[in-house]
Every structure is written in structure tokens, then in C-alpha cells.
């Protein structure tokens, strides 16, 4: 049984990481599902969320587990502004123009942060960080990861319910189904899409705030998560947010197991190989029903 506890530990760690992946991916899936926009600035939004939480912690001494709320609000505003100021003016059919646009937004975000805060790595330091939560004699879970996991789960559930149960969510899903008849049904398409873009960005911002205590911080940190969230959205299937969430959890576990058996440096390779395999054989996704 000597293999069992390391395996279980890796699976549990993977689920903890995966919950944050899920939240990031849900934000991107929401934007992709409603507007068919591949948002290359998603990682940059995550990074902005991390920096916002960090600034509040460093200068306002607010615990990041409250600070992430401010990061979410800020990113909601930024997301809605990016939509209203930029994305809105590009015709939807010019999909590569939108990819380029979001790439440009991402470069601007990352390099502005680089100018203001410099390229240094930062890491939070507060008493909770070293604490572990022990399950039996063999398994131990890192306390800040557990808290982030709990909050991420709540945020993901909230986002899901908001999209599935409210009138706004219904309007967004109507646009996803058919962007041409939705306005005919009295939906203010630009307002709904601005809020959707804001919500997607806010999900990334909240995930950034939750990631801050357990990760390190530098201007280009979002890049890694950007590529992973593409993978999760494609795996989840055509902008289905529940599919993206499932893909996030699976990805977390797969990465964790790869690190355990092959070594950390191969985890990303496995990610991208999965990405290529999914794109070649199941481009409509593995999880979730195929929506619109």
C-alpha cells in the first residue's frame, strides 16, 4: 500500500489546484460561450487580480481572503470597460482581429504593471501560510490552499447559478444561442455582453486573489494560466461553463499526478499534449453537453 498515500495526496492536491483552474476557466468559458471571443487577455486579468490583492495587502494590510473581493470588483470594471471601449467596435466575424485586440490588451496590462511594480517576484508572508491540515497520519493539506479551494467553490457555484437561474443569465444564454434573434426579443445585447465580459474578467480576478497566498507574483504570471484556460475551455466544450469547471478539476489532478510520477517539468508538456489530442479528435470537447 505504499503507493496509495502518495497517490491520494497527489489527487487531493490536484483537486485543490483544480478548483482555482475551474474558476479561471469558467470565466473564460463564459466569455467564449456568449461572444465566441477567445480572450487572450484572460491571463493578464488574472495577473491584475493578483496585483490588486497584493497592493491591498502590502499597503492596506487587508487579508487577501478579503482583498480578493476588491480584486473581483476592479476586474469587473476593467472587463466591462474593455468590452465597451474596444471589443464592442470590432465586428464579430473578424475573429482574428479580436484575438489580436485581446493580445494587445494583454501586452498593455502586463507591461504597465512591469513599469509600475518592476519585474521582481513577490510572495505573501503571513502566519497562515505554513499551516497544514492533517488527515490521518499520511495526508496533509495546506491550509491556505484549502481556504482558497472553499472560496473558489463558492464563487464557481455562484457564477453558475447566476448564469443558469437569473434573468440576466437567461439573456446571456440567449445571445449564446443566437446573437441575431436575441436583440429581437428585447435583449440589450451590448449591455448584457459588457456585463458578461466583466463577469468573466471578475472570475479571473477573484481566482488571482485566491491564488496570491499560495503562488508567487510577477508581471507575466498570467501567461501560464492563459494557455491552460484555453485548454480547459476547449476540453469543456464550446463555452460550456460546467464543462470548463470539470476540465479544470481534471487538469489539476492530471498535473498533480504527472508531477508525482514523471516530475514537475513534464506537467505542462502533458497539458499541451492533451490539448493537441483534444483538438485533433474531439474539438467539440469532452465534458458537458455541447451548447450552441
Amino acid at each position: 500500500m505504499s503507493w496509495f498515500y502518495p497517490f491520494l495526496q497527489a489527487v487531493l492536491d490536484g483537486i485543490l489546484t483544480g478548483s482555482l483552474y475551474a474558476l479561471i476557466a469558467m470565466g473564460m468559458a463564459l466569455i467564449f460561450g456568449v461572444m465566441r471571443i477567445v480572450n487572450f487577455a484572460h491571463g493578464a486579468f488574472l495577473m491584475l487580480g493578483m496585483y490588486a490583492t497584493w497592493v491591498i495587502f502590502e499597503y492596506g494590510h487587508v487579508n487577501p481572503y478579503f482583498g480578493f473581493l476588491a480584486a473581483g470588483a476592479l476586474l469587473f470594471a476593467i472587463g466591462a470597460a474593455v468590452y465597451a471601449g474596444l471589443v464592442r467596435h470590432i465586428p464579430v466575424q473578424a475573429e482574428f482581429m479580436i484575438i489580436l485586440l485581446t493580445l494587445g490588451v494583454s501586452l498593455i496590462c502586463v507591461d504597465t504593471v512591469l513599469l509600475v511594480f518592476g519585474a521582481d517576484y513577490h510572495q505573501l508572508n503571513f502566519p497562515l501560510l505554513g499551516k497544514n491540515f492533517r488527515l490521518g497520519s499520511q495526508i496533509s493539506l495546506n491550509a491556505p490552499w484549502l481556504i482558497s479551494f472553499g472560496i473558489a467553490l463558492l464563487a464557481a457555484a455562484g457564477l453558475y447559478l447566476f448564469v443558469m437561474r437569473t434573468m440576466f443569465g437567461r439573456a446571456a444564454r440567449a445571445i449564446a444561442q443566437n446573437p441575431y434573434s436575441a436583440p429581437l426579443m428585447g435583449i440589450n445585447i451590448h449591455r448584457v455582453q459588457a456585463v458578461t465580459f466583466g463577469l468573466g474578467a471578475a472570475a479571473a480576478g477573484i481566482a488571482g486573489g485566491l491564488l496570491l497566498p499560495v503562488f508567487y507574483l510577477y508581471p507575466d504570471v498570467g501567461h501560464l494560466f492563459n494557455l491552460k484556460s484555453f485548454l480547459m475551455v476547449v476540453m469543456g466544450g464550446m463555452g460550456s461553463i460546467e464543462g470548463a469547471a470539470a476540465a479544470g478539476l481534471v487538469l489539476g489532478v492530471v498535473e498533480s499526478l504527472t508531477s508525482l510520477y514523471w516530475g514537475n517539468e513534464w506537467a505542462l508538456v502533458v497539458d499541451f499534449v492533451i490539448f493537441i489530442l483534444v483538438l485533433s479528435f474531439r474539438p467539440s470537447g469532452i465534458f458537458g453537453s455541447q451548447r450552441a
Partner: protein
Amino acid sequence: MKRPQVMIGTVIFAVALVIPLFLHNDYFLQVIFRLFLFATLGLAWNLVGGYAGQLSLGHAAYFGVGAYGLALLSKGMSPWLAIVGGVVLSMICALIIGSVSFRLRGPYFCLATIAFTEVLRLIAKNLPNVTGGDVGTPVPLLFPHNSMRSFYYACVVLTILSFAITYWVERSRFGYYLMAIREDEDTALSVGVNTARVKLWALLLSAALSALAGALYASLFLFIVPDQMFGVEVSVEIAILPMLGGAGTLLGPLVGSIVLETASEVFKNIFKEAHLLIYGILVVLVVLFLPEGIVGTLNRKLRWFKAAPRTPFASAPPPGPAEESKRIPLPLAE
């Protein structure tokens, strides 16, 4: 038909060939070397991204494989043979990448090209015994004598070659196939264009030119690391240049490279390591105000052609029932 563009191109190349006679400053030569290097990469990208409308964000793959091919193969053979080896390797990569990702459309294609390039970058990082890993690997110097000037001339000649190839493609049947695929792949297929094969040929050509540029770049700097050759920033830069200048135009990549490299050189001193900021701002401005790029917009404004072929990615017509099916891209080509 493309007279003005060819003439402007010829003037630029003539000036470029004369410059070293007056300019003895190695730093400036290196800046212009970089300008023409990225013009070559932009021209190579333009064959696939501009004419065929297949928007690759993974051209760093071919650039990097060309460079690593030279570095690794030259351990066992002469560097000139190693360059050929690098080009062949890069074309093999293009064959694999193309045959998988050309089945995909729209954003899916774009993401697939990124994924392949990332796999190559990580492989280069994770196999320290073969590639030197994160530490990097030395590259042989191709021109030991009068080095900077030789590199400069080699690069300008490579750009001229790419320009000539683009000129040929633009007027050939092959080029018209590519443009047909860009405008409407299904229609192209239905009138008998073997779209899969045509796209693959364009990518092979593009990969070969990119690999040559990669080898030249690596040899000048004598040492390469994975992030510098395979990084997403490289792919983005390669794609942005022709988009800025005008994708699907002969002169576009050259103009884009001149504008962008000059801007980045000027702003490097102001913004230090944040010099990509200017890229971001330029990209956003181009997308908003010049969706056809500089040359594309000038073409339309000045009516240099009587019946100008539509440049790609221009603002699409307002959505109507006919466009509706286009909005949601089919992930798989049928």
C-alpha cells in the same frame, strides 16, 4: 499590377544594400539586421496567415527549430549542412503541425499552433542532455570574418528571396488558390482546389524561410535558450508585423517591420524592459483604426489597383442571415 509595391520594395532593398558602405557602427547594423530578420519572418508568415488566411500564432516553432537544428546538428557536420538539416527538420515539423491543425478552423486553428509551439519549447527546456535545457546551447559562428556586415548582407539577401517568392506566389495559380481559401474555404473546395494540400505547401514554404531566419539569428548571437527562440512573444511579434503592415499584401510585412522595429528601438530606452507596451498600444490602434494594415488601407484609399483583391480580416459586412452560419466556427473542416 503590383508595380508600386514592387518599386517601393526595390528601393528599400537598394538602400539596405548600400547602407553598410556608409555606416560603420555595428550597433546600428544590428538594429537593421533585426529589422530585416523580422521582415523575413513576417513575409514567411504572410504566405500562410495573409494569403491563405490561416492565422498561425505558432511561427516561433519553425524559427526555433531552424536555430536548434543548426546548433545541434553542427556538432556532427559542417554548419552549412546543419542549416539545411535545420530547414528539413523545420519542414517536417510543419508537416506534422499542419496536418493536424489545418483540419481546424478559426480560433481553434490558432490555439492548436500555439499548443504545438509550447510543446516544442517545453521539450527544448526539459531535455538538457540533448538541447542544453534551460541553460541553452552554443551555436557556431557562420561568418568568422567581418562578421556583423556579413550577417547583415545574408539577412538582406534572405529578405529579398522571401520578397521574390511572395511576388511569385501572388501572381501564380498557387497564390490564387491560397487567396480563394482565405475568402471562402468551402467554395474553394467545391470548385476543385485541394485545400488541404495547398495549405500544407504554403506552410512548408513558410517554415523553410522561417528556419533560415532562425539559423541566421542564432548564429549571430552564438547562444540560444528555449524561451528566446520558442517563446509566445516571438510568435506574436511574427504575426503582428504583417498585420500592422497589411496582411496579404506584398509590401505589408516589410512596412510593418520597419514601423514596429523602429518604434520598439526608440521606446526601448524610455520604457526599459516594458518596451512591449508600445506593441500592445500599436496592435490595439491597428485593430481599431487600420484593420487592413498600413499597406492594405493605402491600397484601398489610393486605388492603386482597379479591381483590388479584398485584403483579409477587413471589417466584415453587417450580420445578416447569410453570415449567421459563419459566426459560430465549425471546429472541424468537413
